[in-house]
């Protein structure tokens, strides 16, 4: 295979941190090349340099054996380099074709563009109607818009940043088919992910980064996922262990919870029921944006419901606010760390007060005891190995993983009876994720009921005792995770979704695509 992109000695430093240190690797035409590493390993900086968003301090790049120095993304696109970002930049109120036209320098007439979108979507097996509004599309369909936007430029190298984090297993299969087809036509793909099984299934080669340096290269098919994970982390990985304790009495019960969506593009919750027992972890799978936030708000008390819809040990609590629920022992950790679970510009001490003021008695007569609060923040920092100079630092100065450890630690150390966490390890590196999962399992072992809402199915398989799927605002019935296959999970996710579309809950679950 001919060499397409050659990176040699690329270095980029930011104040206080070397993001990339002498990074070299090559990508051949038609190769699917994985870029692996923990958060903060320098993957993003590296692809930003390739895409022209960041200028390297030193080192060279060659494309088609000619020097390649993109000064901006437009230059990169002109050279045949395209990128699909993890976070989409789409306008919800515009149609697919309009969104794609907005990103083009010389957009063709709208009907020509629509035709081209249809052609490309057919060729690559990515069904997409150019006239639909983005706001009506699922996350998987939105990603297709971004991919087709790239494909219209006929790229030689396609960079994909964590593309499967928002997809159901079936959607992942569709995506992989597309990528294999592209690869067969000679388009190289630089694929960033931390999902090792996917990389083993898809990629021809992998470059592993740690702390900005290339620490290993490998052929993913010839390695086990565990071996690759250990190369990423640089140490042997400990697997969280469940206690195997028998579940106790029902501690939290949700019955026939229905909530209309508060915003036009939010999700309406329909007829959700579940019960949670002491000592167990209930995993709720599903792609983000299918009602996860709304469901968490209903459990935390930020959205109030009919009193009986949520019950704690048989007592109706649906009409209680967040602090009243905390008082009886129902705690939550929302997905959005900065701005929801924590106030970005406040110190960790203040953020400890945010949810722990009652259970930890951090205030007397409504006057905050800052000394005691600081001690609690220090306790969290110590117990959960939060890397920060001290509790006086602002929440936004912490990395995502460290702040998440702080947020989870803040709730766990309050000894809740029920803890609900949404996406506990999203954007968190492997070592921190393992710590967080272990903390959740320990909490369940001590007799609390834990609900983990996550789109990382591997994570749910690892920690949860029972699994149910949330899709389109509906929750499937739960099944024990023991022995559940990925295909069955996919059907649960798809089934709930189809049922919502047909407005017939009993309908036979069908394949998502």
């Amino acid at each position: 295979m001919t060499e397409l992109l050659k990176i040699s000695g690329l270095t980029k430093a930011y104040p206080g941190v070397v993001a990339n240190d002498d990074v070299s690797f090559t990508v051949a035409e038609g190769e699917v090349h994985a870029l692996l590493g923990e958060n903060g390993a320098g993957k993003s900086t590296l692809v930003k340099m390739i895409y022209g968003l960041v200028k390297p301090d030193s080192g060279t790049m060659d494309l088609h054996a000619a020097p390649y120095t993109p000064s901006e993304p437009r230059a990169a696109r002109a050279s045949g380099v395209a990128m699909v970002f993890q976070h989409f930049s789409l306008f919800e109120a515009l149609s697919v074709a309009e969104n794609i036209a907005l990103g083009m320098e010389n957009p063709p007439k709208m009907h020509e563009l629509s035709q081209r979108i249809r052609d490309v979507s057919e060729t690559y097996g990515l069904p997409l109607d150019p006239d639909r509004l983005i706001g009506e599309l699922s996350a998987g369909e939105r990603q297709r818009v971004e991919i087709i936007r790239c494909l219209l430029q006929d790229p030689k190298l396609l960079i994909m940043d964590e593309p499967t984090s928002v997809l159901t297993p079936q959607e992942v299969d569709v995506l992989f088919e597309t990528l294999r087809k592209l690869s067969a036509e000679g388009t190289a793909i630089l694929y960033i992910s931390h999902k090792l099984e996917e990389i083993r299934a898809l990629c021809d080669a992998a470059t592993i980064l740690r702390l900005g340096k290339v620490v290993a290269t490998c052929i993913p098919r010839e390695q086990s996922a565990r071996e690759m994970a250990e190369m990423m982390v640089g140490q042997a990985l400990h697997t969280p262990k469940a206690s195997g304790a028998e579940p106790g009495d029902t501690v939290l019960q949700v019955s026939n919870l229905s909530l209309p969506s508060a915003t036009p593009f939010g999700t309406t919750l329909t007829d959700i029921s579940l019960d949670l027992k002491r000592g167990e972890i209930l995993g709720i799978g599903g792609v983000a944006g299918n009602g996860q936030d709304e469901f968490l708000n209903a459990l935390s008390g930020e959205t109030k419901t009919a009193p009986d819809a949520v019950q704690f040990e048989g007592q109706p609590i649906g009409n209680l606010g967040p602090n009243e629920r905390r008082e009886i022992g129902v705690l939550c950790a929302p997905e959005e760390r900065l701005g929801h679970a924590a106030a970005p510009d406040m110190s960790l001490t203040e953020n400890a007060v945010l949810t722990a003021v009652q259970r930890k008695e951090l205030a007397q007569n409504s006057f905050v005891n800052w000394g005691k609060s600081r001690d609690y923040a220090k306790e969290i920092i110590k117990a959960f190995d939060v890397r920060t100079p001290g509790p006086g630092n602002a929440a936004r100065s912490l990395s995502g993983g460290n702040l998440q450890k702080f947020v989870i630690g803040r709730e766990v150390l309050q000894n809740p009876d029920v803890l609900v966490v949404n996406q506990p390890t999203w954007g968190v590196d492997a070592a921190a994720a393992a710590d967080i999962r272990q903390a959740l399992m320990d909490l369940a072992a001590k007799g609390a009921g834990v609900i983990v809402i996550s789109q990382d199915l591997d994570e749910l398989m690892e920690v949860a005792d029972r699994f149910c799927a949330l899709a389109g605002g509906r929750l499937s019935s739960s099944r024990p995770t023991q022995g559940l296959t990925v295909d069955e999970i996919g059907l649960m996710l798809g089934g709930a979704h189809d049922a919502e579309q047909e407005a017939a809950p009993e309908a036979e679950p069908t394949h998502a695509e």
Partner: protein
Amino acid sequence: MIRLEKRPSPSRAWTIATPLVAVALTMVAGSILFMILGKDPFAAIKTIFYDPLFHPDFAAFSRPQLLVKAGPLILIAIGLSMGFKAGIWNIGAEGQYIIGALAGAAVGLALYPAESFLIYPAMVIAGALGGWAWAMIPAILRTKFRTNEILVSLLLVYVAENILASAAVGWLRNPEGGGFPGSRNLSKWASSANPELISGTGMHWGVVAAFIAVILAYVVMSRHLLGFQIQLAGQAPRAARFAGVNPSRLVVLCLGISGMLAGMAGLFEVTGPAGQISIDFNSGYGFTAIIVAFLGRLNPIGILLAGLLMALTYIGGELAQFMLGLPAAAIQAFQGMLLFFLLGVDVLSNYRIRIGTGKAA
């Protein structure tokens, strides 16, 4: 190339230093302005900042004015700052100030000419309630109908001004005033007077109230859960909801407190320095207090200092007009510069400046 780089945490040193830098820059830019106008810049700056306090001829008159002018500014700004911290924008303190003065004066005048030490406290309470009630209009409209409190509170200023005019020429007019607009002089009736408490200082009950408000606000904002919730709601509304803060309750509370303090400021003014309800009783304290609140970076101690500084530029500005013949517009431009530079250098507390070619340090 100059670049701004976000600091991981706001710099404490710069947060304190920026107002001083802003004052210094204002002096420099103001000097240039005065020079272009053909005046001696040093004399002008001295006249504005130094003479009101230390000039052998004028200081005896102008020094007490400092507290007289700073008192209402501080009292109003303290109330506003709590709302501003929570992201609740009461722009209508001027209206609450007027209604407070009217309500308090009306209670006093209804009892004229009785003599009792209870009359003045009753008037203060009436003034506070008047300002509170006027602020409840935008509060209730916002919580019940999601109107914008900025617009509603601002427009209510003009309504209040018309009520003031109708009071001055109609229902509160002095029956013994020979038909001239304006109420009885409250400062000349012992039961309703707000006299200078210590001769030659300008200290009156309103200034005392302002100092008490500074202390209470400091305690509430730094130690009380309400202060924590106010800051949380302003910085991260979703996190505030998560922490159990009821946004509607906070709107009613913050607008209520700021309206109450503005109303009290109006009452102290009408019974003291102003003396009576007149058509042009309000002199813009309610609007200037917004500047004072920001100049003091919404911090009670900062507001205390900012109120004094603002009062000084007013008194000094008047003195400069009178002594050096500087146009009033130049003085206003000078005061505008102060706010401009303050907001401009504010960026330094959250960002650091990097000078270089884009190479990382």
